[in-house]
């Protein structure tokens, strides 16, 4: 039987952002529009799945003592690949995300999953875990991007003009903190109510 919960847990129960509070920097910095958020999410997911696969494959060969440096090398390889791919095919998005694409390398989620999951599980589950966690991250960052873009710019994914007087603050730094604060507040409230 396939343990599907390895896949779903990352989206809801162990959501890396909202529950585990990891990877906050890109979450705030590049979620000013939905497109940026989605792009960042996919990039992170790509790195996550890639590194999970490789770590899982090599888990028998990596000596325990040097596992962290090896993980970092593996992750940075994927990050560099992503960085260059994005620069080649989506130059404008790459420009928007800026330094945060190479910074995926220090994103705690990715190193964390490699250490906690991929290093101890087979490749199939590692992929599932990677996709799940990546999706969890992508969904949250995209939703935050949508909210901030809608209120701050009046559009969604760059289309339309739904708000006549968009509140600029939402796409500026304070708006990022406020949005996540409110989202987590609502989440907390929901969890307390249904405990």
């Amino acid at each position, binding site marked *: 039987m396939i343990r599907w919960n390895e896949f779903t847990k990352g989206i809801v129960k162990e959501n890396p952002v909202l529950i*585990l509070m990891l990877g906050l920097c890109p979450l705030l910095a590049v979620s000013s529009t939905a497109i940026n958020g989605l792009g960042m999410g996919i990039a992170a997911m790509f790195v996550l799945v890639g590194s999970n696969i490789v770590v899982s494959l090599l888990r028998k060969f990596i000596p325990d003592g040097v596992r962290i440096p090896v993980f970092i090398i593996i992750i940075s390889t994927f990050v560099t690949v992503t960085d260059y791919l994005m620069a080649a095919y989506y130059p404008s998005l790459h420009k928007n995300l800026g330094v945060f694409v190479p910074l995926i390398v220090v994103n705690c989620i990715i190193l964390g999953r490699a250490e906690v999951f991929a290093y101890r599980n087979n490749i199939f589950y590692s992929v599932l875990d990677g996709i799940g966690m990546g999706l969890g991250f992508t969904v949250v960052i995209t939703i935050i991007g949508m909210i901030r873009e809608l209120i701050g710019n009046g559009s969604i994914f760059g289309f339309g003009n739904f708000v006549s007087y968009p509140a600029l603050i939402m796409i500026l730094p304070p708006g990022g903190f406020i949005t996540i604060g409110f989202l987590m507040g609502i989440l907390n409230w929901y969890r307390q109510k249904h405990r």
Partner: protein
Amino acid sequence: MVLNSVLILGGIGLFFGLGLAFIGKKLAVKIDPLEENILQVLPGSNCGACGFAGCAGYAVECLKENADIGKCALGGEKVVRQISDILGKEAKIKEDSVAVVFCQGKDGISKDRFVYEGIADCSAANLIAEGNKECIWACLGFGTCMEVCPFGAIRMDEGIPVIDEEKCKGCGICIPACPRELITLIPKRHRVYVLCRSKEKGKKVREMCEKGCIGCGLCVKVCPTGAIQLKDNLAVIEYDKCNNCGKCVEKCPTKSIVLNNSSSSMQFLS
């Protein structure tokens, strides 16, 4: 190009790796082996989400008494379990116990002697003229125990804490919170309690409270196993002898002896 990059990366890696290994050996500072073990279990990504200085900092914290070992978000449940295995924490709790409040003096049942005004906290209220209840063994009913309970297992009902046995983990945090020392941890299989701590004489108890133990001794006589004794005008049950038969409960004239047969605990009754 490929060769170069491999060389550079490998070179840097080797240089630092060897250097680190060498220096690490040379300059090693001893640390607690237990700490080392915990550090091994922790994810090692030093994300800082636990609020401590990296994984090493948290490992040190875990060794402290009463430390919260559930703070590593990255590692999740698995790591918590491993840490607790290392520390042998779970092993400490031998028997399933539950907190019991030894007073039934609800509002109106236990008489007030004055109207208290001030901080709504039992220990603060207890400082002033020994509390607002006639009985100096009575629950003051400000719910300080409810506030300290980390599991939300205590709720206040008409001025008396009621403990939810399903939620109570038997941690005992509420015990020192009660200024009148009314809460005790009792193994779950014991179902009969004398819910009174008053050492006053019977007449005085009747004046102060409807449900106090008046020390009449009926329960002592009726008990088939001889588990009940009178000490300082108070019936005291020796739990090792008690078989939860409940005969004393029927006999008690003030209903100060109680058989707790809430659904969750029925399984313990033979």
